[in-house]
């Protein structure tokens, strides 16, 4: 029995349960009904919940079992899959519905039990994402520990040379790679730095223009357009960086006698900056809007001009929020991969020159994991170590951003 008819059957059973439950609730004598603790609809839902819960539980149980290594050849699992499981589910649903319908009487506090179901569902949803985060961190952590059994900490964090080519067989040449991650982190920093130089002034100024200077009509049309920038897939930014901006910078470079490679940190950084402009502008837009109007009035009332008001009152008042916005945008830039893959290349150069090619942590993670590799080779495991380090860095940035933003909130509440 495949899953679709099973679900349809279940739904039909629940619908019947709902219909029957609400009817039964209605059939109670009138005076009792008015005092009862729920309306027919809620009694119906109550029945449905009891019809759905047992199959759901069984399904989860079955999932857990199918992950456990009980049977070797999978025949038992198939048996269970085909016959036992659907039968069990049907039985569970039927039993649940029957019990619930039998329970129905005017004194039953369905309102309360339904409320509890909603509570449980919401709790589950919110803890699930927490567990996911924990799971991700743990999986990174285990592989990272393995990695550091093969490669010493000192090499990873201090050595300046990154060439992770390890041999698949012992007799190959160049069998020992070197895993100094410093050039990757400096590359990430360089590109992020360039991106922030582009994005912070442009984003901030556009936010100020939008909130303080633009007419309401202009704002209503232009702001959504600006936010479209945030919806462009990063691959498209990548094209733009590699094929348009990179080439443009190279041509300009040759024209003024500079040696600029097509895949330069500058091109990637500038395009990445454009990508994060909407983050900065729309987040700072919100915090600037949140600065109370009466502070503006106070400033204008004292004879300050608009730009004086912006510089001396609005920006200082919104500064914590703006800093938060910048930090969030920065962690976004640090984690960005696609633009750098396409526009800055794979060469792990240790350089501060934006006109050269550099590579970033995220790009190398991609590079390490594509292609055929043993899963426990140092090369593959290095990806996890890089990812964990990066995760810790962006996590710190996010935490700082959150703290700053929270402090800001307290101020005007």
């Amino acid at each position, binding site marked *: 029995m495949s899953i679709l008819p099973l679900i349809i059957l279940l739904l039909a059973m629940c619908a019947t349960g709902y219909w029957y439950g609400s009817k039964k609730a209605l059939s109670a004598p009138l005076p009792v009904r008015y005092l009862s603790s729920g309306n027919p609809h809620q009694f119906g839902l109550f029945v449905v919940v009891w019809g759905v819960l047992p199959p759901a539980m069984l399904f989860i149980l079955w999932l857990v079992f199918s992950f456990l290594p009980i049977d070797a050849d999978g025949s038992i699992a198939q048996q269970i899959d085909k016959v036992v499981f659907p039968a069990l589910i049907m039985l569970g649903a039927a039993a649940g519905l029957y019990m619930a319908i039998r329970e129905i009487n005017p004194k039953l506090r369905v309102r309360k039990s339904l409320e509890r179901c909603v509570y449980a569902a919401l709790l589950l949803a919110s803890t699930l994402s927490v567990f996911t985060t924990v799971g991700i961190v743990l999986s990174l952590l285990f592989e990272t520990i393995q990695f550091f059994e093969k490669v010493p900490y000192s090499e990873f964090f201090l050595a300046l040379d990154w060439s992770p080519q390890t041999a698949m067989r012992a007799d190959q040449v160049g069998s020992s790679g070197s895993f100094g991650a410093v050039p990757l982190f400096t590359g990430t920093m360089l590109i992020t730095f360039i991106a922030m130089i582009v994005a912070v002034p442009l984003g901030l100024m556009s936010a100020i223009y939008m909130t303080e200077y633009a007419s309401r009509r202009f704002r209503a049309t232009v702001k959504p357009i600006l936010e479209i920038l945030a919806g462009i897939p990063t691959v498209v930014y990548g094209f733009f960086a590699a094929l348009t901006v990179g080439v443009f910078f190279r041509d300009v470079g040759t024209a003024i006698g500079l040696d600029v490679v097509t895949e330069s940190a500058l091109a990637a950084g500038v395009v990445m900056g454009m990508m994060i402009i909407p983050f900065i502008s729309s987040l700072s837009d919100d915090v600037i809007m949140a600065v109370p109007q*009466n502070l503006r009035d106070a400033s204008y009332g004292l004879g300050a001009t608009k730009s004086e008001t912006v510089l001396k009152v609005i920006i200082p008042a919104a500064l914590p929020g703006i800093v938060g916005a910048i930090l969030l945008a920065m962690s976004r830039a640090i984690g960005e991969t696609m633009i750098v893959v396409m526009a800055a290349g794979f060469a792990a150069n240790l350089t501060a020159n934006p006109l050269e090619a550099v590579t970033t942590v995220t790009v190398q993670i991609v590079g390490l994991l594509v292609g055929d590799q043993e899963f426990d080779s140092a090369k593959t495991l290095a990806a996890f170590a890089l990812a964990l380090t990066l995760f810790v860095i962006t996590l710190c940035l996010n935490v700082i951003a959150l703290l700053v933003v929270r402090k800001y909130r307290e101020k005007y509440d």
Partner: protein
Amino acid sequence: MLAKDMNTVYNDTKSIISAKDVSVFYGEKRALKSVSLDIPENQITALIGPSGCGKSTFLRCLNRMNDTIENCRVEGNITVDGQDIYAPHVDEVLLRARVGMVFQKANPFPKSIYDNVAYAPRIHGLAKNKDELDDIVLASLEKAGLLDEVKDLLNESGTGLSGGQQQRLCIARALAVQPDIILMDEPCSALDPIATAKVEELIEELRKNYTIIIVTHSMQQAARISQKTAFFHLGEIVEIGETEQLFTSPNDKRTQGYITGRFG
């Protein structure tokens, strides 16, 4: 028109502001209808009237704060010291330095007390050096009757003061620009009776050197501190008179209804 006639009767002191046929529109909506009012120099003029009748709107016309509201349009003629303040060559920023404003809700900047008061002098370059600035700040706080309370807290945040202290800080901040005229929009509405009494005392004190126009919802307050009172109703001025006369024997039924209604 009644309002105009009343105006001329009480024109015995020199008027510093004179508004003629002022109408204000918010978009299509007309919030003030041909209002005319003369404000005598070095006196306290109270604007009273039910909520939404246009008192704040009128007040904001006098220092062109309405310019900051996007769809607001002002018609008519307003002169300060005989000069039309809506004339094209007039810089509204300089006008606002002459005609200061204190708002209904105390709105100190989230800066230190010192910086709050020093804000306008710094912008307008009123002080040549730090000492002069110190003098202006201390003198303004003194005039606002706040100096004794905050002498040792000048570097603390202005938002940390009590409501009444904040309101006096805002007055000090307005005084630091050295204006001639101060507009006050319900400056005591958020204050308790003791803080109100302090601010009222201060306003009376300021009258010697400044012309003050105050919007208030409290009849008692208007009666206590003002010399001249204008009663607004539905965007018009119904009655203007000397405060005492207006409160004891109002000419218009609506005025009478409003002030007696309030006294219960």
